[in-house]
């Protein structure tokens, strides 16, 4: 049997005594751990930046060479130029502000009320058994499907769109919060009870922090859904906003604007997700 060297740091050498000895020695990662980690970090970050740059460069080449149909896939430089025009005319800022406003107001109203209600429903058993099936059923309704109903009731103004975002976020956060609260290990409740903690102290010092990580996960999912749903609503029921920009550029036959809208929407989604990761970092220091 030939000895196999599994790792660069190990080597097998036959010796005079006829036996094969395996020696295990420090490798580059052990000899210079800091330098090794730094070099690896640089390479990894470099790759993460390089990959999209290469893709965009490829796109640019194919588009300007005529391989890609410019009516569908305008060159990145064309998109950048029309982005500049949209900013200059102020249409871009107007669109971003309109969408962000709807997302932020709807999101905050929906999520925050859901956290409060979720804590309540989750910690009061009777409320939970009474409401959970109904909430689960309502949760499955695709919220975009009720947009026409909201339009019917509240008209074409801001209210219907903000409400749509709020409802979408509300159910996701509510379900996650209830789930988080009912998943809190009873042993922590035992500590509370044997310390004579009041209901409020239990909620504040035990239920809330124990349920917080999963609640924030729900809030992060909700932020993604808020972006999706507002775009859908703006397609059909708005005269401003990034969704409207995308939809309208299809009508007008300006594909560059479509890309500006699509990229901006994604960026908003990424920023929202980053903000919530930051919130999580702030609020759950014990998980850092």
């Amino acid at each position, binding site marked *: 049997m030939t000895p196999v060297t599994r790792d660069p740091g190990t080597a097998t050498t036959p010796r005079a005594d006829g036996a094969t000895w395996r020696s295990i020695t420090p490798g580059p990662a052990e000899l210079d751990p800091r330098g090794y980690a730094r070099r690896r970090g640089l390479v990894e970050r470099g790759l993460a930046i390089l990959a999209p740059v290469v893709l965009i460069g490829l796109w640019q080449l194919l588009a300007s060479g005529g391989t890609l149909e410019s009516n569908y896939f305008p060159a990145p430089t064309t998109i950048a130029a029309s982005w500049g025009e949209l900013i200059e005319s102020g249409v871009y800022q107007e669109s971003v502000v309109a969408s962000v406003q709807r997302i932020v107001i709807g999101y905050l109203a929906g999520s925050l009320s859901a956290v409060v209600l979720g804590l309540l429903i989750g910690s009061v058993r009777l409320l939970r058994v009474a409401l959970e099936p109904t909430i689960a059923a309502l949760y499955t309704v695709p919220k975009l499907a009720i947009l026409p109903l909201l339009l019917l009731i509240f008209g074409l103004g801001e209210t219907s769109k903000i409400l749509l975002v709020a409802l979408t976020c509300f159910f996701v956060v509510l379900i996650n919060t209830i789930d988080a609260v009912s998943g809190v290990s009873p*042993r*922590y409740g*035992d*500590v509370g*009870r*044997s*310390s*004579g*903690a*009041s209901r409020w*102290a239990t909620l504040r*010092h*035990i239920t809330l*922090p*124990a349920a*917080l990580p999963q609640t924030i996960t729900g809030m992060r999912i909700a932020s993604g859904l808020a972006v999706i749903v507002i775009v859908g609503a703006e397609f059909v029921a708005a005269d401003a906003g990034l969704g409207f920009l995308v939809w309208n550029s299809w009508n007008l036959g300006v594909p560059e604007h479509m890309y500006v809208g699509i990229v901006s929407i994604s960026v908003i989604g990424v920023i929202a997700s980053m903000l919530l990761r930051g919130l999580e970092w702030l609020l*759950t*220091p*014990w998980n850092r």
Partner: protein
Amino acid sequence: MSPLPADGAAEAGVKIAVRKVGKVFPAGTGSVQALADISLEVRDGEFLCLLGPSGCGKTTLLRVMAQLERPSSGVIEMRHDDPSRPLSAVVFQDYSVFPWKTIRDNVIFPLLQTGMRKAEARRVADHWLAQLDLGGFERAYPDTVSGGMKQRVAIARALAVQPELLLMDEPLAALDAQLRLLLQEKLLELWQAHQNTVVFVTHSIDEALLLGDRIAVMSARPGRIATVIDVPFARPRHPDEIRASPDFAALRDEIWHRLRRELQPA
């Protein structure tokens, strides 16, 4: 809570009177009888060890004493002497230290529930943390320290409220042998200084002999009190001397035979 029957509750020197207590848990379609007809008196100021094989109902009995569980039958009476102090505090078998609170805030939490001011609670917490050699770790989160330290946090948290009755459920079971010896000495020292009544669950005969005034030996499920043994060693006790004494070996043998009989089906 229902009013207690008046018969004999005020017996002199008795802190807890457990009378014919049974506990049945529903389990699936059937039920588990965890405790059967337990009768036991815990004396005021004593260190009582509950010793028995695992699964015999030690935790269940302790939880009933902690008012976290109610008996299925029988009654437990506990005398609360000083309303300004909490009747009992518990050290749980699985620590149950809050991961979201710093070590200091874990100890502060029950203090605040007694109505203590924050500054005072902080001072008291730091005192007990120092007593358990946790000075310097006040601001650390529990998940960043070892299991042995977490368990000491749980002990500090229970001691800090100065309960009349300290209920401890295998507080040292999860520790390695050396650390366990050190903490046994620590507990002995603290108890000798403060003398609250202690009910201490353990499955270690040595530990029971070292710490206890009396040892209540429980039988396998359903848990009953098989026998109660007086531990003759004088206080203050010194662990090394006790372990070396011939009485220690003899008592240990006696209890071991007793336990072995309980574990073997007749």
